[in-house]
């Protein structure tokens, strides 16, 4: 089994849009995670969601990697976009769609999937 940090890195690096959130898109456990999810869906993003709640080590490793202290966290093509406030603001200004178009093309899939991290 890969180290937790390596698993998180893999998701960030390899998933077009990664959303680290509390809960899952099917069962959101936090208002801010819901805001980020909703903004991404409105912008027609494909979403790979990772639930950070199963173990506190997940958020520690994630914040160490990203240098971002709070959750949710959104990444597009491996790059940190920000948290719920930023994603909502970028949606409102049209920049979120632009950024997704630039990174993934305008004819992108919109699948939502969930990656569960393996915990030792």
């Amino acid at each position, binding site marked *: 089994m890969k180290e937790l940090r390596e698993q998180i890195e893999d998701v960030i690096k390899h998933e077009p849009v990664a959303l680290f959130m509390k809960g899952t898109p099917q069962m959101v456990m936090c208002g*801010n995670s819901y805001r980020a999810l909703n903004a991404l869906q409105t912008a027609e993003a494909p979403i790979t969601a990772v639930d950070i709640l199963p173990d*506190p080590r997940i958020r520690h490793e994630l914040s160490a990697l990203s*240098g*971002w*202290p*709070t959750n949710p966290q959104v990444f597009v093509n491996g790059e*940190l*976009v*920000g*948290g*719920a*406030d*930023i994603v909502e*603001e*970028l949606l409102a200004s049209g920049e979120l769609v632009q950024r997704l178009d630039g990174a993934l093309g305008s004819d992108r899939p919109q699948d939502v999937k969930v990656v569960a991290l393996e915990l030792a």
Partner: protein
Amino acid sequence: MSALQFPVDTMAAMEAEDIRELLVRAFPDALELEVEDRTGTGDHFQVTVASPAFDGISLLDQHRRVNDVLSAHLADGSIHELRIKTKGTP
């Protein structure tokens, strides 16, 4: 899960005024600086800062500047939720 794994439960609440003071020190030339305790429980805050410090830097970096000021309180869980609105100068 034991309470030890969630220090947030044991942390003393912060006053909006404490956060305001930290931000005023970090952004002395802010044109607007507001801190709202969203839930009245001293751990969910909305922070609004307009400052020339944000001119010409990305929204991500603007939020990073605010997070950095409050990093200790975010790390120890005394701030459980931080909503940020930043603005440069018009």
